C-alpha cells in the first residue's frame, strides 16, 4: 500500500500545495496586501534553518554521539539574543544600501569592491555545495527506504546506481524547476520573494508537526514515555555512554560547533536571504529573537528519545541511524506516520534548497557574472536595450548549476559521510564570512585588503582541512594524503596541521580557519589604509543608527534624468522604473524632467534601485558609465567632503567666534578707555569751572567787603572798587553765557539765523566789536587785507562774527605786548572763503594744536599760569563752523606767533538757499 507511486503522488500533491501558497503569496504582494507581514511568519521563515540535517541528521548524530547535535541550535539561540541590535543593524544597513546578498554586503562595506563580492560568491557556492548535496541525499535515501515498505532495507550506494535511475537526480531537477519558478519569476529591485517566504513558512509548520508526530509516536506509542526510553537505554553500557559529553567529542568539539553555528544562523546565504533580504519590517526581529529559538527547542525535544528508540529497536542491526525517523514507524507498521515523516523531511529539504539556490543565484548573477560582463564586455552590453531577460537567464542557469554541483558532490562523496558531517563543512565555510561582516559593522578601521586577505586565506585553509579530505575519503585523492600528510609531510596533515592533533576534523578546521582568517583580517587591516570610498562606506555601516538618513550631496550634473531612466529600464524594466521614479517624485515632492541634469539625489536613488537588481558593485559601474566621467573621484570627494566639511565648518565657526570675541573685547576696551577719559575730562571740567568761577568771585567778594566794612573810604577809591566788582561780574556773566552757549550747541538746541551774506560785512562787524581792545592797547598794530568780491556765504552772521571776535580778541591777548602785530586776511579759495587771523605772540606748541579746541584747554598750564580767557571761545567757534560745514585750524610754532584759519564754503548758487522760515527753525 505504500508503493513508489503513492509516495510520488503524495509528494507532488504536497509540492503543488506549496506552489499554490507561493502563487497566492506573490499575487497578494502584487496587490500590495502582503500575507507575510507578520513577525510569526518571519520567525517561521527563519526556521528554514532546520533542514533535512535537523530532520534526519540530528537523530543520526544523537545515536552516535549523544548531545553533540545540540550546539547547532544553542549557538543560534545565543546569536538571536543579540539579534535585536546585531541582526537589526545588518537589516538596516542592507535596506539603506539596497543590499541583496552576503556578497553584496561584504562588497559594499569594503568600498563597493566587485572583486571582494566575487570572492564571497565563490566561497559561498563552493562552501554550500556539500550542504545542498546533503538535502538531495536525504530525499533520495528517504524515498528509497520508504519505497521498500514493509521491508526495511538500506538503499544501495548512490554512486553505484545508473544516473538515470537515481532518484537524487530527479529530485534535483524538480527542485531546480521549483526554485526557478519562485525565485526568478521577474527581476525585482528589492529582490524580495513574498510567495517563496509564504511557502517556506508553511513548510516550517509541516516539518515541525511531522517531527513532533514521530517523536510522540516513538516516545509514547512504542515506549511508556521519556523515562522508560532513557531507563531502558541506561541498561546498555554502549548507549549509557551517550548520556555524557565525552561521547559528544568533549569541550573542543562543543565550543567549535557552538561558534560556527552562531555565525551560520546569519551568514549562510539562505539565512541572510530570509533574515535580511526578505524582512518586511525590522521590528519583526523583536518577536523572532525568542520565537525562532522556541521553534528549535520544540523540534529538538524528541531527537534523543527517537535516537534511543531506534537504537533499542534495531540493536545489532545495520539500520542507518539517519533513517530512524522513517524506519522506526515502519518497523512498527505505521505507514501513515512514516509517510508523514517523509513529507516532513521533504519539506525541510525543499525549503533549504529553494531558498539557498535563489540566494546563491542572486549572488552569482549580481556579484560574479554581471561585474565580469560589465567589465570585459561593457561596450557590447551597453548596446543591448533590455537586460532583464539576460539577467533572468543568468539566474536560472545559476540555480541549475548550483543544484547540479550539489548533485555531483553527493554522487561522488556523499555516501561516505553522515548527514551532519557534510552539513558542518558548509557551516565552517559560512563562518569564514563572520570576521569580515562582524568586523565590518563594528570596526571602522577594517580595510578592503584586510577582508580580502582574511577571507581568501580562511577559504584556502577550509579547502585544505575539510574539502580535500572529503575528496580523499571518496577515493579521488589518495587516502594517505589525510593519514600521513601530502608527500608524507606529517606536519601538513590536513587533520593535524602543524602537529595540532587531538581535535576532531571540524574543531581542527574551525580553529585553523579562524586563526588565519581573523589574524590576517586584523593584521592586514591595521597595516593598510582605506581609500576614501572605503572610509565613507565604513562610517556609513558602523554608524548606521546614528545617521539621520542621507546627507545632502552636491553633484555636478553630467548626465540627464533621461539617461538614468534608460539605464534603469534596461535592468529592471520600464514598469518598475516608472514606479520607482514616481515614488521618488512623490517622496521628494519634485518633478522629474528627462531633459534635466541629474543631481546627486536622483543619481544616488537610481544607483540604489539598480543595486537591488544587479548588486552594489555592478550598479556603481553602470552609473559611472552613464555619468561619462570618473565618478569615483567626484563620489569619493563628495564623501570625504561630507565628513571633512563638518570639521571645517566647526573649526571655521570656532575661528569666527574667537575673532568676534577679540573684536568685541577690543571695542569694549576702547569704550572703557573713552569712558575713563570722559570721566577725567568731567573732573577736569568741574575743577576748571570752579577755578574759573573762584577767581572773579574772590575779587568781587574782597572788594565788596572793603566797601562794606569801611563806609568812610574816599569816593574815588570806592568808585574804583565798585568798577572792579562790575568788571568781574561781567566776566562771570560772560563765562556762564559761554558755558550755556556751548552746552546748547552740543545738545543741538541752538537757533540759527541763516542768511546769505558778504564775508566782508562779517569781518567789518568783528573789527567794529573789537575796536575797543585796540584802543586799550595802542601798541598793537592791526593790518586788514580783505579781497574784494568775495563770494557770499550762507551763515548765521552773528555767529560768524562771534568766531572772528573770538579769534581777534585771542590774538590781542597773546600777541607781543610791546610790538604787537595782528594781520587779518580774507580771500576766496576754490568754492570757499578763507579768513586768517595772525598774531606775532608766543605761538602754540605743535602738540597743543588740537587741544586748544577742546573745552577749557588752553595752551600751557592753566592752573599755574594766569588764565587768559574762559577757555571756551575756540570750542564754541569749532562748533559754529562745523554747523556751516566749515573748518577751523591753527598753524603755529613756539615763539613765532600763531595763525588761525577759518574756511567757510561759499554758496555755489542761489538754489541752495533754504527757505528762510524753515532755515530759521532748523535744529541740528
Amino acid at each position, binding site marked *: 500500500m505504500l508503493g513508489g507511486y503513492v509516495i510520488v503522488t503524495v509528494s507532488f500533491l504536497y509540492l503543488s500545495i506549496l506552489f499554490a501558497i507561493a502563487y497566492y503569496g506573490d499575487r497578494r504582494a502584487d496587490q500590495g496586501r502582503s500575507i507575510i507581514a507578520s513577525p510569526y511568519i518571519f520567525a517561521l521563515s527563519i526556521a528554514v534553518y532546520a533542514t533535512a540535517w535537523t530532520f534526519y541528521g540530528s537523530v543520526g548524530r544523537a545515536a552516535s554521539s549523544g548531545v553533540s547535535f545540540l550546539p547547532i541550535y544553542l549557538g543560534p539561540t545565543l546569536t538571536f539574543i543579540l539579534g535585536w541590535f546585531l541582526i537589526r543593524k545588518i537589516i538596516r544597513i542592507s535596506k539603506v544600501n539596497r543590499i541583496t546578498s552576503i556578497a553584496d554586503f561584504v562588497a559594499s562595506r569594503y568600498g563597493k569592491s566587485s572583486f571582494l563580492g566575487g570572492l564571497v560568491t565563490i566561497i559561498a557556492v563552493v562552501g554550500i555545495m556539500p550542504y545542498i548535496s546533503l538535502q538531495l541525499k536525504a530525499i533520495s535515501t528517504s524515498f528509497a527506504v520508504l519505497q521498500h515498505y514493509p521491508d526495511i532495507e538500506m538503499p544501495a550506494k548512490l554512486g553505484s546506481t545508473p544516473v538515470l535511475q537515481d532518484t537524487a537526480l530527479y529530485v534535483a531537477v524538480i527542485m531546480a524547476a521549483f526554485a526557478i519558478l519562485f525565485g526568478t519569476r521577474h527581476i525585482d529591485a528589492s529582490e524580495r520573494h513574498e510567495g517563496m517566504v509564504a511557502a517556506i513558512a508553511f513548510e516550517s509548520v509541516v516539518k515541525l508537526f511531522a517531527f513532533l508526530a514521530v517523536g510522540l509516536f516513538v516516545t509514547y506509542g512504542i515506549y511508556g514515555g521519556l523515562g522508560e526510553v532513557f531507563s531502558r537505554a541506561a541498561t546498555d553500557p554502549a548507549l549509557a555512554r551517550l548520556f555524557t559529553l565525552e561521547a559528544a567529542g568533549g569541550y573542543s568539539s562543543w565550543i567549535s560547533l557552538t561558534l560556527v553555528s552562531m555565525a551560520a544562523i546569519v551568514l549562510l546565504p539562505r539565512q541572510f536571504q530570509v533574515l535580511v533580504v526578505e524582512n518586511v519590517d525590522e521590528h519583526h526581529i523583536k518577536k523572532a529573537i*525568542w520565537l525562532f529559538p522556541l521553534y528549535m527547542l520544540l523540534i529538538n525535544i524528541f531527537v534523543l528519545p527517537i535516537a534511543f528508540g531506534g537504537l533499542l529497536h534495531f540493536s545489532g542491526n545495520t539500520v542507518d541511524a539517519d533513517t530512524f525517523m522513517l524506519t522506526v514507524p515502519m518497523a512498527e507498521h505505521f505507514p501513515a506516520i512514516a509517510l508523514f515523516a517523509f513529507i516532513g523531511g521533504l519539506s525541510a529539504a525543499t525549503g533549504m534548497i529553494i531558498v539557498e539556490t535563489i540566494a546563491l543565484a542572486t549572488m552569482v548573477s549580481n556579484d560574479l557574472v554581471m561585474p565580469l560582463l560589465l567589465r570585459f564586455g561593457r561596450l557590447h552590453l551597453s548596446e543591448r536595450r533590455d537586460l532583464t531577460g539576460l539577467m533572468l537567464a543568468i539566474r536560472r542557469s545559476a540555480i541549475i548549476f548550483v543544484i547540479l554541483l550539489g548533485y555531483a558532490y553527493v554522487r561522488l562523496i556523499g555516501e561516505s559521510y553522515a548527514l551532519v558531517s557534510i552539513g558542518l563543512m558548509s557551516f565552517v565555510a559560512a563562518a569564514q564570512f563572520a570576521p569580515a561582516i562582524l568586523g565590518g559593522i563594528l570596526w571602522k578601521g577594517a580595510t578592503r585588503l584586510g577582508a580580502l586577505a582574511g577571507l581568501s586565506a580562511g577559504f584556502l585553509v577550509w579547502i585544505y582541512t575539510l574539502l580535500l579530505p572529503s575528496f580523499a575519503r571518496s577515493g579521488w585523492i589518495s587516502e594517505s594524503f589525510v593519514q600521513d600528510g601530502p608527500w608524507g609531510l606529517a606536519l601538513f596533515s590536513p587533520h593535524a596541521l602543524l602537529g595540532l592533533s587531538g581535535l576532531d576534523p571540524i574543531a581542527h578546521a574551525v580553529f585553523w580557519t579562524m586563526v588565519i582568517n581573523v589574524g590576517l583580517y586584523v593584521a592586514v587591516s591595521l597595516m593598510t589604509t582605506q581609500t576614501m570610498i572605503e572610509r565613507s562606506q565604513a562610517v556609513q555601516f558602523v554608524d548606521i543608527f546614528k545617521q539621520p538618513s542621507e546627507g545632502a550631496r552636491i553633484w555636478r550634473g553630467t548626465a540627464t534624468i533621461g539617461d538614468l531612466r534608460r539605464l534603469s529600464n534596461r535592468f529592471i524594466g520600464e514598469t518598475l522604473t516608472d514606479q520607482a521614479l514616481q515614488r521618488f517624485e512623490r517622496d521628494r515632492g519634485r518633478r522629474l524632467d528627462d531633459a534635466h541634469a541629474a543631481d546627486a539625489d536622483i543619481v544616488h536613488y537610481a544607483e540604489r534601485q539598480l543595486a537591488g537588481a544587479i548588486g552594489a558593485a555592478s550598479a556603481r559601474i553602470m552609473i559611472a558609465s552613464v555619468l561619462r566621467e570618473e565618478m569615483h573621484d567626484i563620489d569619493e570627494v563628495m564623501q570625504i567632503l561630507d565628513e571633512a566639511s563638518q570639521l571645517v565648518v566647526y573649526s571655521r565657526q570656532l575661528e569666527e567666534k574667537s575673532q568676534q570675541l577679540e573684536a568685541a573685547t577690543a571695542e569694549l576696551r576702547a569704550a572703557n578707555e573713552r569712558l575713563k577719559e570722559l570721566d577725567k575730562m568731567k573732573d577736569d571740567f568741574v575743577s576748571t569751572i570752579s577755578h574759573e568761577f573762584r577767581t572773579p568771585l574772590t575779587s568781587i567778594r574782597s572788594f565788596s567787603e572793603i566797601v562794606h566794612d569801611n563806609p568812610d573810604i574816599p569816593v574815588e577809591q570806592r568808585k574804583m572798587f565798585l568798577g572792579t566788582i562790575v568788571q568781574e561780574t561781567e566776566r562771570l556773566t560772560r563765562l556762564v553765557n559761554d558755558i550755556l552757549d556751548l552746552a546748547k550747541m552740543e545738545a543741538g538746541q541752538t537757533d540759527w539765523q541763516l542768511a546769505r551774506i558778504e564775508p566782508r560785512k562779517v569781518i567789518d562787524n568783528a573789527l567794529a566789536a573789537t575796536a575797543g581792545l585796540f584802543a586799550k592797547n595802542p601798541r598793537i598794530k592791526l593790518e586788514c587785507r580783505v579781497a574784494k568780491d568775495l563770494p557770499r556765504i550762507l551763515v548765521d552772521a552773528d555767529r560768524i562774527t562771534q568766531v572772528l571776535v573770538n579769534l581777534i580778541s585771542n590774538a590781542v591777548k597773546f600777541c607781543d605786548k610791546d610790538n604787537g602785530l595782528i594781520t587779518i586776511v580774507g580771500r576766496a579759495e576754490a568754492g570757499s572763503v578763507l579768513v586768517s587771523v595772525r598774531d606775532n605772540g608766543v605761538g602754540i606748541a605743535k602738540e597743543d594744536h588740537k587741544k586748544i579746541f577742546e573745552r577749557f584747554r588752553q595752551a600751557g598750564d592753566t592752573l599755574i599760569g594766569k588764565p587768559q580767557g574762559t577757555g571756551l571761545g575756540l570750542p564754541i567757534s569749532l562748533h559754529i563752523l562745523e554747523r556751516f560745514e566749515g573748518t577751523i585750524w591753527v598753524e603755529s610754532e613756539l615763539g613765532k606767533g600763531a595763525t588761525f584759519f577759518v574756511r567757510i564754503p561759499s554758496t555755489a548758487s542761489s538754489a541752495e538757499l533754504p527757505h528762510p522760515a524753515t532755515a530759521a527753525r532748523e535744529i541740528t
Partner: protein
Amino acid sequence: MPRRGLIAERLIGLFLFGLLLLTPPLIGAFDKATFVGGIPLLYLYLFLSWALLIALTALIVERPDPDEEIAESEPGPNPDQGPNRRPRA
C-alpha cells in the same frame, strides 16, 4: 532612530549569562550519569537552560519599554482645547 538603551543592555547581559550556561566549564558540572525524574541530568540541564534563555529573552523584549512607548505614541495637540473655552463676559 529607535531607542536601544535598556533593552540592548539587558540582552547583552542575557547573552553573557547564556554563554556561561551553555559552554564549558559550567556544563561539565552536569556531565554525570545521573537521572532526574527519569531523564539524564545533562539533557535536562541543557534543555532547561535553553528554555530559560528563551523565556528571559521573551520577557525582556515583550515588556513594553516606557521610553519607547512615549516616543512612538506622542500625544498630538488636544482638539478640545481652545474652541471650548468660554469667552469671559
